[in-house]
């Protein structure tokens, strides 16, 4: 995140609206099922899923609102929704 903005945002900089705290279900990527197609990345509304040149996609939990679109749209069902625990 720090490279994308002039001021670092998220965990390593200023915290804007903490939409990560809205989450009741958390998406978890099962790497063994993932085919690195990148559909979760293009459909993530908050831009939480990032990819790189090696087509490795990762879910960032800083701003993920837990909408579940990635789990619904994944063609191999490699993303599951897990209930957030109350700490």
């Amino acid at each position: 995140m720090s490279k994308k903005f002039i001021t670092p945002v998220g965990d390593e900089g200023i915290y804007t609206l903490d939409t990560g705290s809205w989450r009741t279900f958390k998406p978890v990527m099962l790497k063994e099922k993932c085919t690195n197609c990148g559909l979760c990345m293009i459909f993530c509304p908050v831009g939480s899923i990032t990819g790189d040149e090696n087509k490795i996609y990762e879910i960032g939990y800083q701003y993920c609102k837990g909408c579940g679109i990635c789990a619904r749209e994944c063609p191999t069902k490699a993303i599951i929704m897990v209930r957030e625990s109350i700490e």
Partner: protein
Amino acid sequence: MNLIDKLATWEDQISPGISACVGCNVELTLRTCMKVMGPNTIFAIPPGCMGGVGVVGWDKKSGAKTPVFFPLLDNVASMLAGIKLHYEHIGRDVNVVAFAGDGATVDAGMQCLSGAAERGDKIIYICYDNEGYMNTGYQRSGSTTKGAWTSTTPVNHSGQGGKRQNKKDFPLIMAMHDIPYMATMNPAYIPDMVRKLEKAKEIKTGLVYLHVYNPCVTGWGFQSDFSIEVSRLAVESNFAPLYEVENGKFKMSVEIRNPKPVKEFLSRFKKFSHLTDEDIQELQEWTDFKINRLKHLCTL
């Protein structure tokens, strides 16, 4: 480099952590549009959902990397026309983009948008159509589908009520202005959306109008994870067909061979849950009429 790699490497122009509803596909549309438009952009967001969630930066927490204006509901296109003229005058080529809701486009901002289209101001006008004034609690707009529940067209216990008038076919109205490029888009068809946005960026002869059909999670009443699935159903049932008009020539972007019944799309939403079979049949006939007219226009 394919499209997914491009989208992964393009810079996000909107700050993370904007307060759009969970599963909002307008936020996805906005981020995709601004990724394609790039940093050399000035954009305006009138009052509406995307203004309200803080993209314009008034909550002093979130915002955009590019300059963003917060015009009134009814002067978006005319204000941007002036900005574009200034940049033309000083000799700098920037993308001037409006990202307006359907209230600010179809109802309140229509006359200035129509004027800008007629004058041929070189702006890109993106309308996200979620069929109502969602930011203020889902009042009806000119773009709401007939029969829909809204907070200003309520439904009583015996299922009577809802909007009595048909939806305004605004993409076609804009196409009939004979602007150089008009296209409809859908958040479930991101490659198609990116292709149209890239085309829109290249056009330097007049106004470009892009219409995005966005089902609204909170207002229409469905679960957030179905946000993309129901958007896709809108295209698959021909309720919101994807087409483009380039210099007066109509062309379907996505051909649906065996369209699904409109009932399958309508039954997903709470706002249509009171509709009787006759109401749904009427909407089916209306959809069939629209798509047949569109297909006829494509043959001309």
